[in-house]
């Protein structure tokens, strides 16, 4: 069973900020929700409360960038781009300010429903020139997200996991480098964020059914290493399947479609995610099942892709556990 890490962002941000005096901690009235309440209390000189006023916060952060600071904006992902889209574009993205936007509660990781679920953020950010997009999929990636984001010469949007986060990997994010989780050659699975753990569960059940998948985990969504991805696409005999905590338009499914079409790859692509729909409020497990974002949805998607039944049931997947990180190190390192 994977180790569960409690509030990995909290200590990681503090460590990074204290080592970098030009890093500022900005919050928009969601300080404890974004695990920076202790930072606020312990380091008030490096903390700025900007209240429930995201439009001002975005332009203000752009101004801080002009003054040579590197503000880390903390709020829920939705509040980073829906209301203050114009300010995000004009004050941060266009001028390439070194603003690090930490978007918590990506996709359906919140019971807060439509208003709190950032389900199209990657699509929005991918179409924004100058924006870099990173996504965390486990505790180690959350622990390394601050340093990774702060290494970017320009603005960065990060999908950050909070609370109890499983540890799946034991090496930090290397910006631009995808993780090779499994290296089979039947089907290519591409995941990011919380869907990676689902794919790891499915991988074991699929192996039992005789399907060896190649599973890639993305922590850098923009810019993207298309050359390496194309090699992986060519390396599998069958098709490609994506599973994302996001709508199926504009995210990693679309990214794969673009790479395949641009290069004339004649393989099938199946894109799983929120299929042109909003979600509602509920537990993560319930929502992942309801909207087809879990391991079972993935195995069924692979059945569709292969045109054959594999006989994998929900019970089979429930029995599959993701091992603790150190037993996975080999799979990752190959």
């Amino acid at each position, binding site marked *: 069973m994977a180790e569960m890490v409690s509030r990995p962002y909290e200590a990681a941000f503090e460590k990074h900020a204290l080592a970098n005096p030009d890093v500022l901690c900005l919050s928009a009235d969601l300080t404890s929700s974004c695990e920076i309440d202790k930072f606020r209390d312990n380091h008030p000189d490096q903390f700025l409360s900007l209240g429930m006023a995201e*439009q*001002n916060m975005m332009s*203000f952060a752009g101004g*801080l960038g002009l*003054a040579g600071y590197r503000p880390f904006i903390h709020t829920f992902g939705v509040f980073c781009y829906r209301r203050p889209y*114009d*300010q995000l574009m*004009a004050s941060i993205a266009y001028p390439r300010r070194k603003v690090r936007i930490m978007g918590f509660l990506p996709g359906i990781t919140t019971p807060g429903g439509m208003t709190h679920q950032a389900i199209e953020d990657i699509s929005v950010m991918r179409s924004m020139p100058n924006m870099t997009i990173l996504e965390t999929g486990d505790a180690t990636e959350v622990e390394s997200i601050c340093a990774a984001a702060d290494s970017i010469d320009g603005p960065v949007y990060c999908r950050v996991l909070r609370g109890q986060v499983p540890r799946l990997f034991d090496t930090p994010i290397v910006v631009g480098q995808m993780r090779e989780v499994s290296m089979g050659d039947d089907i290519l699975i591409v995941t990011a964020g919380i869907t990676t753990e689902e794919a790891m569960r499915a991988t074991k059940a699929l192996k039992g059914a005789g399907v060896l998948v190649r599973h890639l985990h993305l922590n850098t969504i923009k810019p993207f290493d298309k050359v390496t991805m194309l090699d992986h696409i060519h390396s599998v005999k069958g098709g490609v399947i994506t599973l994302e905590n996001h709508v199926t338009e504009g995210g990693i499914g679309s990214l794969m479609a673009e790479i395949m079409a641009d290069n004339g790859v004649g393989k099938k692509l199946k894109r799983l995610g929120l299929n042109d729909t909003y979600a509602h409020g509920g537990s993560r497990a319930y929502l992942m099942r309801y909207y087809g974002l879990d391991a079972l949805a993935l195995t069924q998607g692979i059945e569709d892709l292969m045109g054959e039944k594999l006989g994998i049931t929900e019970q089979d997947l429930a029995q599959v556990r993701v091992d603790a990180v150190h037993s996975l190190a080999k799979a990752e390192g190959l």
Partner: protein
Amino acid sequence: MKNEKSTEDIALGIRRRVFEHAMRNNGGYLSQACSAAEQLAWLYNEELNLGAPTLPMIPELFAGVPHADNPGYHTGAGYNGPFEADLDRLFIAPAHYALVAYATLIEVGRMAPEGLEMFNKDGSSVEMIGAEHSPGMEVHNGTLGIGLSTAAGLAWGRQKRGETGKTWVYMSDGEVQEGQTWEAIQCCAHHHIDSVKAIMDVNRQQCDGAMDSVMEVGDIRAKMEQFGAVVAECDAHDLGAMRDAAKTPHVGKPLIILAHSNPFHAMPILEERFPRLHYVRFESEDERARMNISIADALGVAPIDYEGAR
């Protein structure tokens, strides 16, 4: 760097340049020159503490937008001098005033007159709506309402670093219809950002016409004070009053000067166009000719020979 001309002469020169430009181009942001000339002349000639310009007197052509592949990119802020701890910064929040701002740069010797001839020409950096790379601009402010927030962030950062320079914002009154303006004022007050100073052209006009007909905004002064600003008021065409307003103490709070202006000041014939003053496009050759004679007379110059101009 102070100019040797009087501020009055600079304001007149701004109007003359904008008038000539509008005549040659069959229209332009004439009314903004009427309302704003003294304010911009006063900022550049008296109030702002700026260094010598760092960019060529004749503006460079457009050289690309900010991008990882465009390492030579720079903004137009160099026309306001270098960034130094003790020097001031200026944001022109309503980028639609760009024509007037460019005319000001010429009048105070920071840009060559040729710069205005590049206005709104393809491939030029002297854009109609001031862009980051346009002379005298440091950020994009074409979406109205974002200027004060940007200034607040910069000013907070400069205060934290112990810099003594001020961060000035030139604002327009229409911007108070945007919620972000109020977010910015409350933020300045909450964080005691008192190195932010703004002067607002209160001409009570906006794109659709008179503000009261578009969206009533009530008592701007009272609202700003409630949100935490110190507010001073003056006649936008009375330089003495403007100087006094700027001396208003504002410890721990931003200062906003409401400069009440006349949108046809020094060009009274423009009143014929009220309330469509945002962009004056001449509606007939007759109107163009009448305005040419009338405004030229009011500004003490000969009518513009615009035959052959576009």
